[in-house]
């Protein structure tokens, strides 16, 4: 009876270590197109990160943090911008997992990227940690 949890733990650690060996820098035309799309959008998102309107969520997406600083008429556009960015981010995580030959690694890729985004966030940006928002 006690073996079952142990096996589960070993399998889990094995799967995590396999995932850890994945290449997050892997490239493909689709990944290139997604990165380019995100890069182009970043010029619109950067001031929103800086103002605190948009923050980096804990699940590797971006989220509305405090829209109060955004002019009313543009809040819908910010919402659309966030949705577009998250669609690209989710696609990027799936593509990187696929390009590594392991589509099932998607959640691991997403978690790793989530940590990366938070680590690389600039001073003053809002990031989600432990379920709450923190300003870096």
């Amino acid at each position, binding site marked *: 009876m006690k073996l079952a949890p142990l096996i589960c733990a070993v399998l889990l650690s094995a799967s995590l270590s396999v995932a850890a060996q994945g290449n997050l820098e892997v490239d493909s035309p689709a990944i290139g197109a*997604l990165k380019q799309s995100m890069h182009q959008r970043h010029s619109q998102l950067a001031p929103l990160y800086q103002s605190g309107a948009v923050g980096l969520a804990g699940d590797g997406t971006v989220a509305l943090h405090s829209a109060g600083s955004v002019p009313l008429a543009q809040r819908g556009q910010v919402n659309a911008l966030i949705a577009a960015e998250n669609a690209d981010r989710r696609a990027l995580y799936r593509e990187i997992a696929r390009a590594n030959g392991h589509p099932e690694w998607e959640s691991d890729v997403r978690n790793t990227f989530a940590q990366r985004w938070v680590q690389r966030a600039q001073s003053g940006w809002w990031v989600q940690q432990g379920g709450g928002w923190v300003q870096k």
Partner: protein
Amino acid sequence: MALLSLPLTASALGTLVFAVGRVEHPAFALQGLQFDFPAGGRARLSIARLRVVDRHWRNVRLDCAHGSLDGATVRCEGGVLRLAGLPHPLQISFQLDLAARAGTLGIAMPDGARLNARLLTDGSVQATVTGFDLGVLPAWLPRLKAWSPGGRFDGELKWHPTRMFELKGRLAGGAFGSEDGLRAAEKVALDVRVDAALKSDRWEWTAELGWRDGATYLHPFFIEAGPSLRAHGQVQQGVLDIREASVTLEGVEQLAASALLNLHTGQFDRVAVALAGADLAVVGPRWLAPIMAPAAGGRLRFAGRVSGALEFEHGRLRLLDAVFDEAGFSLVGGDGGPGLAFGPLSGYVPWRDGLPTRGALRVGGGRWQKLALGAFDLGVDIDDRRIRFDRLRIPLLDGALVFDGLVLDGGDTDTDWTGKGSLVIEPLSMHLLTEALDLPSMSGVLSGSIPGLRASPGEVVFDGTTVVSVFDGYLRATGLRVLEPFGVGSHLTADIEAHHLDLAQLTETFSFGSITGFVDADVRGLELVRWRPTGFDAKVSSSEGRYPRRISQRAVQNISSLGGPGAIAAIQRSLLGFFDTFGYREIGLGCVLKAGVCEMSGIDGNAEAERFVIVSGGGIPALDVIGYNRRVDWRELVERLQRVIAGNAAAEVR
């Protein structure tokens, strides 16, 4: 109003004291009032307990610069009232005839706002409010603090002793904003009229609102001034019952709603909305796109009309009915191309929380990329977040796409939906298909059987076989997957085999010169990004069997131009000028495309050798076409091929 008076008393020091036990009104209550009139014309009003709406104070004091008691008339002028929670004292003057129960009251705020009220002998009250700042409301109603209300209100209030009141006025520069900014309004100008009457234990009311200016953002909707509202209902035991609200909204013929608002929690317990004759071209971008596809809102197009109903309970959707009338929906492609479109579309789609329903739509047609889709009927069984489609036959050219057992399961979240079913492609004429796609005309037929059609976020898998009979042979595509179909990273992968393609037809179709004979092709791991190849391992080789094998001078030149400089053995170049056609024994060309580079190979497939034979001569006259550059930039190769097909560039022969 109940007035309980206590007797007047005068002390030996000449101070007059006048006390009132209690004054009550639905909107306010005063208890333990005491007027002191010390010598010198001043006056002071002490209130042991004061209630305004649901805010309570104790030991409130009003100091009057001038006060008097003349018979039964109490006067206070230049009074100053300080209340805990209010940032500034109130300037108050009043005159009250206790015998006649009549009087006047004036309240001035430091910011210029004024309230002037008259208490008439019949018990009615008439009040005017000028420049009242909504920003002070949180001091009276702390629950509003999180909404940061603002704006100025001017209006009139009439209170009748029969417990009726009328309020009409105008809000200017109205604003509010939740802390997260998801609900906010700015520069709102609103005309308001409310009539209410107390009937036994409930207030019955009617209201009219006219929104003249400003805008609001109620996530995810941005709404500008224009709508107006007429509503009636009642208030009872802390619940605001909006029995019927009629809203005029641009693009909607009729919009009605009812709701129950819990005044204690500030939450709607129930909301029901019904609309008729909504113009989708107007309401679609404003109300549907932000919910359906915020990321693609700019690419969504709407047309036609929709009617329907929605019901929410405690914020949860319980019912949805949609009736479409000649509606149209289209999604422009991510690359600006024609994308996907359906319509005109008419029919009924119902949804009930926890109950199965059935919907039926008649779709007049559609378009996918450059392909026009014919009319079809769409029957669906809906059960919560699961939709099961009836057998669905979508006419396409002279054939059809037939989906069977198609089921979409919404999953627990928006990002874990799945779909499955099977697809049969009834034979399509290649002549019509190539014509529709602006490709060189080909004869033949395309058909397919995909028993394992599966879809999930970011992936559509076609587990089956699609066969194209073309050029007297056939192409067979298997392992077809469309990845990230609606995003910028959209790409497609497949394996393709071709058998016994007639080179004479093929080369004629693509104006490649003339080759007689047959070829097989094997393309593994084909990857297309935006319909352009980005990866594959392809091999084309002569088919087995005995058949005439001739290649024209033009085809030799074209193949050699694809193979790059020096593709023909120098000793044989002079032959080209003398003969129109040449015999060949075998043709073979391979390309492994990776990272934009085509690693080429020839008949022998020997990747180590520097040179590779593309055409091996045979018969008389004969010549070999040999490639010397194994690594070729794919883009350059495609440009060469396009130039060859277009006939704009003469092949280089050296």
